[in-house]
């Protein structure tokens, strides 16, 4: 039953049906729309790999960059120990190394991190003996990028 108050000669309803608060969200597949940031690219191309959360909501990014060692003509020693770092507003927020056997034909590195609304985010991929200057970059002799996006999903909180 509604409760009313008298306000300036009018009875005003002061009770509301407020929906209980719950956290929800939706996944979106951005695999075809996202790629790691290749530091050998031009500034313009690199800028394209810096993404902005314009959803108006908090998002969780789950990104899996990887390298198909056989298809790219690389050795096991080339890719073993590679790792990726995720940045939000240019600060590192997640790091993950390929910890698998160096006999793997395909390198997979999964990163997960939160991105507040309006924040920028990107991913870089590094080789094993890093001082963070040895990034994966460029294309193979066939013009295929060494690092590809295997999966990239984004969860938007509602």
């Amino acid at each position, binding site marked *: 039953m509604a409760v009313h108050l008298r306000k300036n000669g009018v009875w005003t309803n002061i009770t509301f049906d*407020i929906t209980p608060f719950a956290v929800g969200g939706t996944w979106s597949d951005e695999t075809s729309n996202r790629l790691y940031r290749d530091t050998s690219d031009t500034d313009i191309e690199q800028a394209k790999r810096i993404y902005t959360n314009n959803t108006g909501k908090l998002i969780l990014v789950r990104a899996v960059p990887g390298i198909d060692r056989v298809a790219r003509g690389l050795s096991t020693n080339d890719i*073993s120990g590679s790792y990726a770092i995720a940045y939000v507003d240019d600060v590192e*927020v*997640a790091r993950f190394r390929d910890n698998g056997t160096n006999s793997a034909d395909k390198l997979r590195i999964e990163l997960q991190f*939160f991105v507040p609304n309006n924040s920028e985010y990107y991913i870089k991929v590094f080789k094993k003996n*890093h001082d963070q200057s040895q990034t994966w970059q460029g294309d193979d002799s066939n013009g295929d990028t060494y690092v590809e996006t295997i999966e990239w999903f984004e969860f938007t909180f509602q």
Partner: protein
Amino acid sequence: MPIRIREGNTWKLIANDSGIPSIVTGTYSYYGPGESTEKVANVTYTNNTSKLIHVSATIGIDRNASIGSGQNAKDLIAGSYVLASITSPQNVTTEVANIRDNGNQNTKYLFLNPQFFVPVGYSYIIKLYDSDDNHWSDSTTYPNAVETFAWSEFKFELQ
């Protein structure tokens, strides 16, 4: 125009323009190297923020700088792992992350990135062990080997 009701001898405001929180959002705080506060492994921290937080810490060992480049150094860091645990205000401890470095032992850097939630009022700690379950902080030979590469805390808010 605000609406007030009378309680005792006081008129109290019962309506205002503030919205009802309905959106999850949040902000990062950073505690890595170079920040005004740097957080490190083997130290207990408490979530005093009144909000749920999500911790993402990358800790590890710069092998060449801290231990050396020989086979003995490689053997020492290979297979190291971190355990993260949270402890409730009632003193109940729960393990929330267990990450092992199974990588190429030739890497010059060991690093591990546990991620976990810390409820309000809970404390948390991250510890690094070698492959033989020895706590790295107990090492008398390399007492300062473990360092922080990055450390962030994401504080959830309602908007």
